């Protein structure tokens, strides 16, 4: 919402001060200043000129030659790149020597053999709006008696002013008008605020004899006021009105539309005009739409309605307006219109919101209705203002108006407890002080014992409860005046076990040389398939691009894309990890099965590198009983992948990415891969370490090498040795693996170093020999291993 200082002063003449300070005051009221502009200062040297002649440039297509009169009656030739003017048009003209706002100095120039003695200006070039398209034609905007060659500001009757573009929050329907902003600002500055009287002569006829309004659905329409304007001639509005509309960012259209917009901007009341001749009997019926009913709106689009929409229908029940959203094309004002039916209504905000959203049809009017317009005195005032502005242009309204009522919000005074207000804000305001803050912005506040009886004004649809009132008190008291304290009762803070363990995982992986990545969680169609995964990802209903239309079910696609991206930038062997959410389909549930996964991707490395990382995590987290079981898994290398089993439960996979999948992504070399369901791993037992006293007695090492067929895993041999070695076996280390000469195909040698130690005595040779033999027996009898000489 834009406002100008001059317009605000029509309601509070004493508003004054430095524009920056006033802007700060507005921001502190919750009307954040997004932009401030000092207006009405037109560039020196830009004058009013008249187009005398237009002719083609003999040697250029994209420019034409224009003769202008800048007041001396002489034809001054310029070259111009715009073609939107006609002979006789009045335009802004930058004379030679003018320094334009963009710093360019206008000089006499020759363009392809023709002289150019100045510049015809577009609106944007001289700071009149954003319009770059064509020259600004000023024919109906100059003040009466303005002479050619007059400085532009003088010719347009513009005076220096300040405009602020305010961010108005959804809970401030009142601030969607110049008057509403003036009310707030006047209260903050402690200066008076009043509405002028809008009086105008009215015709002898009575509105009630000409038109009627029947509110069939009182929940839709809280109030409907209407009157009639006679002998309307649609022309252009006066320069001052056009200037104000332009200053607030609205394009002047014609006299009736401009008045309509002017009243809406000034007083916050959207309004609508019908060609009375096209409304049979002047009878309006306000009701909900019939399912499937159609209406062609002002923008020429035929729209199909549903029963929740509100419409204004005529006597024959034909919808001629979409309540609070947009008028109908059938009854639109045109050049042939003579009589106008003027509507000021109050529509139920949720109803308007639903229709706007369903039809995706936002407008200045509906924005105000959705926030809750004023259903009180302001409606009558707005009608009076419209009638007055029309009268200034010679259009007279009939006497009186019809004023029908539906259901409006209850404004029975509410009880406001100063103790509650102070308890919420942390203030120590007296009831009187609270009352004064409220009455300064038009609330009613009467003492009621120790409390206040507060009447909420009709322009604050958003405000209902004591808490809402507290915000108004805080606004007027000033947020910056609230004394800062800290809560007394805060308990000891901390991270959860899960969160601490997750940080440990990160720490370990970073120590292992892995860079943490954070791809976006979206996938494109086909991403899951090219990663070898099931195409069952949850899809998004309104993705902006197809690349972001599916939620990932695995961290694999994102990591492969990241590796491919880096390889394409000559960074081959990246080591990445990621901890983030995946979304598994859960058909029985409303929400997907959302889990936190850990992925480690080591480009240029083979499966054992991923296992080494897993073992590092096993150690760091003290994972109990971690086992690997060879398996095939989607997207992973069929013969180099194992299921990770922790305490008997499957928690993910470790190994390598399937070569086909790597090819699909253009990834070079192998990629070692680990993906764990981190939520399950850290949610399960981990980190439990137990103290065993360090033995004071010497240990003995025994080296054993076995020939083991490939069908038996090292883990199985390892397990057998540990079991057989019993409590005396302290450590088992696989220190050599050998395949090749001297060994049959499909058999390898596994060499283990076993360390034996007792907690309470030095082991005897017999004890060591017995333990050694038990280990040999276990490996050889159960796993077809043979002891190497």
């Amino acid at each position, binding site marked *: 919402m834009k406002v100008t200082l001059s317009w605000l002063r029509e309601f509070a003449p004493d508003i004054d001060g430095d524009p920056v300070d006033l802007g700060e005051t507005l921001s502190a009221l*919750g009307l954040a200043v997004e932009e401030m502009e000092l207006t009405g200062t037109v560039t020196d040297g830009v004058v009013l000129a008249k187009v005398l002649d237009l002719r083609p440039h003999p040697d250029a297509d994209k420019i034409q030659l224009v003769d202008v009169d800048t007041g001396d009656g002489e034809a001054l030739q310029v070259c111009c790149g715009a073609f939107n003017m006609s002979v006789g048009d009045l335009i802004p003209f930058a004379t030679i020597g003018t320094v334009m706002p963009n710093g360019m100095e206008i000089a006499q120039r020759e363009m392809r053999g023709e002289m150019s003695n100045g510049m015809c200006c577009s609106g944007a070039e001289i700071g009149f709006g954003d319009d770059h398209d064509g020259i600004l034609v000023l024919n109906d905007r100059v003040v009466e008696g303005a002479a050619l060659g007059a400085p532009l500001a003088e010719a347009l009757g513009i005076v220096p002013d300040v405009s602020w573009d305010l961010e108005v929050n959804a809970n401030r329907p009142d601030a969607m008008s110049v008057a509403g902003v003036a009310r707030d600002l006047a209260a903050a500055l402690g200066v008076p605020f009043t509405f002028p009287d809008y009086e105008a002569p009215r015709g002898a006829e009575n509105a009630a004899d000409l038109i009627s309004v029947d509110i069939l659905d009182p929940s839709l329409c809280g109030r409907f006021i209407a009157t009639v304007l006679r002998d309307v001639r649609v022309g252009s509005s006066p320069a001052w009105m056009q200037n104000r509309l332009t200053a607030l960012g609205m394009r002047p259209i014609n006299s009736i539309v401009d008045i309509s917009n002017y009243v809406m901007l000034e007083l916050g009341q959207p309004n609508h005009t019908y060609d009375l001749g096209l409304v049979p009997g002047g009878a309006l019926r306000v009701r909900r739409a019939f399912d499937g009913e159609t209406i062609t709106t002002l923008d020429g689009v035929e729209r199909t309605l549903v029963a929740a929409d509100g419409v204004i229908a005529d006597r024959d029940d034909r919808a001629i307006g979409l309540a609070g959203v947009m008028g109908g094309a059938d009854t639109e004002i045109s050049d042939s219109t003579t009589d106008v039916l003027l509507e000021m209504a109050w529509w139920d905000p*949720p109803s308007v919101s639903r229709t706007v959203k369903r039809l995706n049809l936002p407008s200045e009017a509906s924005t105000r209705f959705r926030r809750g317009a004023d259903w009180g005195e302001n409606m009558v005032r707005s009608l009076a203002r419209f009638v007055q502005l029309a009268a200034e242009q010679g259009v007279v309204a009939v006497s009186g108006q019809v004023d029908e009522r539906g259901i409006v919000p209850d404004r029975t005074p509410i009880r406001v407890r100063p103790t509650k207000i102070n308890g919420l804000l942390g203030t120590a305001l007296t009831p009187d002080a609270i009352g004064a803050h409220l009455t300064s912005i038009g609330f009613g506040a009467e003492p009621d014992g120790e409390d206040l009886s507060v009447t909420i004004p009709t322009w604050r649809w958003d405000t209902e*409860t004591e808490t809402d009132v507290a915000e108004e008190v805080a606004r007027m008291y000033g947020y910056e005046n609230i004394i800062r304290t800290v809560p007394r009762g805060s*308990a000891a803070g901390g991270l959860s076990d899960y969160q601490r363990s997750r940080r440990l995982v*990160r720490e370990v992986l970073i120590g292992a040389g892995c860079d943490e990545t*954070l791809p976006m*969680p979206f996938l494109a169609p086909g991403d899951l398939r090219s990663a070898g995964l099931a195409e069952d990802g949850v899809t998004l209903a309104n993705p902006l691009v197809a690349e972001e239309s599916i939620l990932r079910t695995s961290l694999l696609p994102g990591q492969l894309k990241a590796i491919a991206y880096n390889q394409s930038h000559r960074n081959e062997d990246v080591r990445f990890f990621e901890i983030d959410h995946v979304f598994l389909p859960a058909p029985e549930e409303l929400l997907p099965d959302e889990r936190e996964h850990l992925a480690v991707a080591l480009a240029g490395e083979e499966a054992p590198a991923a296992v080494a990382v897993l073992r590092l995590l096993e150690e760091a987290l003290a994972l109990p009983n971690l086992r690997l079981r060879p398996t095939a898994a989607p997207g992973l290398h069929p013969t180099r992948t194992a299921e990770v089993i922790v305490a008997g439960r499957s928690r993910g996979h470790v190994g390598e990415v399937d070569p086909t999948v790597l090819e699909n992504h253009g990834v070079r070399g192998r990629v070692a891969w680990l993906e764990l369901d981190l939520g399950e791993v850290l949610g399960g037992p981990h980190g439990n370490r137990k103290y065993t006293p360090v033995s004071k007695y010497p240990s003995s090492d025994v080296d054993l090498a076995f020939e083991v067929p490939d069908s038996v895993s090292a883990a199985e041999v390892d397990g057998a040795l540990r079991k057989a070695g019993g409590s005396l076996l302290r450590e088992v280390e696989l220190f050599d693996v050998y395949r090749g000469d001297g060994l049959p195909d499909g058999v390898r040698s596994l060499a283990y170093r076993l360390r034996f130690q007792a907690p309470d005595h030095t082991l005897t040779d017999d004890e060591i020999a017995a333990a050694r033999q038990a280990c040999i027996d276990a490996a050889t009898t159960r796993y077809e291993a043979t002891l190497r000489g």
Partner: protein
Amino acid sequence: MSLPAEMAELEQIPAEVDARLAAVADLDELAEIDSAYLGKKSALTAAKKQLGRIDPEQRKAAGRAVNEIRAGIEAAIAVTRDRLSAAARAAQLEAERLDLTETRERIRRGSYHLVTQARDRLEDVFVGMGFTVAEGPEVETAWYNFEALNIPEWHPARGSFDTIFVNLGEPEQVMLRSHTSPVQIRTMETTEPPIYIVAPGRTFRTDTADATHLPAFNQIEGLVIDRGITMGDLAGTIDSFVHAFFGGEVKTRLRPSYFPFTEPSAEFDISRPDGSWLELGGCGMVHPNVLRNCGIDPDEWQGFAFGFGIDRLAVMRYQLDDIRELVNNDVRFLRQF
């Protein structure tokens, strides 16, 4: 010198030893000298044995003289030994000299993602202020994302969230959360007050990725529910956090604003070194409807909530010119931090 005549030649020995020590080459030769002049077969050892045969009158003085000579030689040899040992060590160390800039192997540390760094630091500051850290799902229902937060289906504020909806349930019933506030609701539904939490996490909006926007970004949200919590507590808590995170010289201010789930609502700004203000986030006193929706009695409990972007802090701290770097995962970017 009180040596009897028959031992007179002993007086020559110290000079002789000095001469040999001056020319000694290494510790082995020194050991020979030691043995020759102090060993069992040396003249001094022989002289000591002869003392018994000397006139008792002279014996004491002669003995002292022999001992003096011996002590002198021992000292001279010890000094020489120290000198030779030091030289030998020095020679060995010199032989071991390495060019340490020649190393080829290195242990590379990985890097924490910038967002993680910012998030961890925020968590740590709030943990220090007595908060715990809560988390929740990224896919949410309309109840948690909107309705429980006092944003009914028709509310204009819904449009301003630019929500990404998910094809689950009824149309617009399931969505990618548009803020971290659903975690407030989930926490209040399952936890009895007092509640002191922060909830960091990813949030979503239908934004086209460009230099300043991502459709998925990270926020952190704070919630305090306790008896007698005031707006002064809110302002003070934000102040404390900003001092701890940005430094004691940074000032804060609250400006009235609007969020359906807080009343009163505010934006909070922090001061820049040049005195201007930077909008950091939104906050307010938890709306009584929100408390009621979670089964908390607003007459007994009051609280505040606040929230702001995490990614933006990382962008600000390192003055990144393109926020997409945060999701590109380019190692040339990642390894800078």
